[in-house]
């Protein structure tokens, strides 16, 4: 079984590396798919594994974008002058400056978002259930509104970053591998993390926080660390998105509460909350569904999206993995003794 799993993982990894070469026309879509996978996995860290349903993880995405942009610009120019010029004339970046900006920007965005998560989490983790969801949603919306009034980072106009210094096709490949690399590292990290004592502790918080606390788990510390890890990775992909999009503005592309901010929740619910593979499968299904249907709906795509959210939440909340676990428990290592009780419970 383990040998089979190792082979499976090697095949998947090989496919990840080969995908942009096999489908050169879909490089940007594939990169976006990895973005969705990363944000879904990070959402599931708090939402699925720890039971804290955040609607505001998009805050880290937007903040990551802005931090990365400010760092990469600040290395070369004065940020206020750059943003007020709005891309006019001040756009000369040497390749070395560009790649240093990308590297430091990603790192800085990740660290800054992790710190933000610690500070915000200290305030917000006193809220439970729906209050936490509304509070985090409030943070994301407020951040978008405040940034769009902040002239130093370009206000409502947003920021225009330099383009990739070499061939644009090569650039698409570059961003694909940045996203995919982050995704693979995150997946391996989570696979390890959920098997440790830490994973057991956050699952205990999800199942019953009072009891977990009574058992001597410092719940606040665990919650803060989990959220800041999630924030770290979302900040990094936010930074990559900033360089990939080149030009972005606060409300629609950075703090996009109703787009990506809700997509990640839907992906996780679609794939199955609280499982390792659920968010990945959900993100793939959702992204394929979205890209295939988007072109044919002509303006109604957002209505269809709202309908998809409602249908997923109301009728299919266990998701694909939950459904599979119910139908084929033996795949998940659960041994089912055939007796009257289980047969009666079989739907």
């Amino acid at each position: 079984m383990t040998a089979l799993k190792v082979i499976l993982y090697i095949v998947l990894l090989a496919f990840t590396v080969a995908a942009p070469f096999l489908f050169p026309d879909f490089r940007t879509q594939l990169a976006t798919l990895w973005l969705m996978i990363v944000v879904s996995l990070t959402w599931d860290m708090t939402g699925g594994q720890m039971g804290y349903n955040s609607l505001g993880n998009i805050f880290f995405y937007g903040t990551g974008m802005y931090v990365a942009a400010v760092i990469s610009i600040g290395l070369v120019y004065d940020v206020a002058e750059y943003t007020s010029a709005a891309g006019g004339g001040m756009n000369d970046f040497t390749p070395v400056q560009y790649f240093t900006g990308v590297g430091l920007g990603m790192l800085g965005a990740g660290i800054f978002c992790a710190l933000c998560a610690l500070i915000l989490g200290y305030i917000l983790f006193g809220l439970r259930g729906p209050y936490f969801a509304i509070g985090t949603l409030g943070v994301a919306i407020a951040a978008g509104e405040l940034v769009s009034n902040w002239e130093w980072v370009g206000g409502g106009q947003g920021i225009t970053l330099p383009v990739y210094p070499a061939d644009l096709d090569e650039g698409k490949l570059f961003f694909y591998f940045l996203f995919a690399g982050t995704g693979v590292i995150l997946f391996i990290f989570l696979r390890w993390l959920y098997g440790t004592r830490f994973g057991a502790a956050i699952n205990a918080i999800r199942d019953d926080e009072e009891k977990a606390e009574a058992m001597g788990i410092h719940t606040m510390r665990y919650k803060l660390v989990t959220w800041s890890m999630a924030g770290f990775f979302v900040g990094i992909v936010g930074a990559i998105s900033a360089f990939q999009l080149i030009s972005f503005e606060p409300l629609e592309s950075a703090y996009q509460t109703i787009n990506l901010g809700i997509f990640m929740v839907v992906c996780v619910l679609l794939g199955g909350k609280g499982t390792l593979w659920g968010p990945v499968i959900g993100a793939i299904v959702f992204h394929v569904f979205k890209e295939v249907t988007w072109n044919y709906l002509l303006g109604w795509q957002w209505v269809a999206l709202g309908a998809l959210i409602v249908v997923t939440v109301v009728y299919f909340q266990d998701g694909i993995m939950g459904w599979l676990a119910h139908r084929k428990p033996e795949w998940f290592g659960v041994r089912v003794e055939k007796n009257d009780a289980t047969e009666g419970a079989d739907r």
Partner: protein
Amino acid sequence: MDQILSNIGLLFEFPIVNLKILIDGLMIGALFALAAYGLALVWGVMNVKNLAQGDFVICGGYVAWYLAGLGLPPLMGVPAAFIIMWGIGWVCYKVVISRVIERDLFTSLLATFGLAIMIAQILNLLFGSDTQSIKLEYATLYFGENDFIDVPIAKLIGVCMAAVLAIGVIIFMKRSRMGQAIRATAQDARAARVLGIDTEKVYAFTFSLNSAICGAAGAIIVMVWLIQPFYGITYAIRSFVIVTAAGLGNLPGVIAAGLGIGALEQYGAHIFGIGYQQAIAVLLLLLVLVIRLIQQRRKRQSLQ
């Protein structure tokens, strides 16, 4: 920063500015209180936190605006929106809400968020993303030195209609058979069922009533301010602020909090500039949550 300080200075230099802001704020706050009362009703009776609240408000506004465009007298738009939004609320209840009542709270929150996105996008497709309003042919009253304070009669009519609606709903809840059934269900749904109340019917009625109240509030808003398909979420957030601050089943509290938030928002917009108005509404939510949190921490409890 200088701008902010000079705006604050203005408040002290000319006290009459305060009065003007306060009147504006209280008038808009009356409408927030109406939507928040609907939210408190649904929250208290069926434990559903409705994020589509604001979109019902905007939807009601568009109903009134559309009918006014067809030649209906603008003031008739309020009852018309009430009736039509009643129907829309009933459909929403039957299709979505009835299936999430028994589930955990995040489910209802997310389902209504999906509903909110759908309503906003359908309105956007049908009517476009421009801001809309109905112009009323009424004079404006002036008070104070140099007629500094202007109160359009249209706004006064709007506030009066809001008050009439609120009083009507309160009397209905107190006196009518259905109102009693709703209050009984809010206290203990299971006991109510045992005593022969058809709770399913009560839930459907409550949600439709909430939607209708929101629709009427929206119809008033379109007469005195502006609506736009995507303004919904801030109305929903304001309703959450008010209900979280006032608590459930606390009607005077809801009214006071609604008026207070209206006034605070106007002050904020005056001091920081109109661009921050949406941000202020959301920051007030965070402020209220943090205050409630500190209160709960004293009792060693968490807000849930």
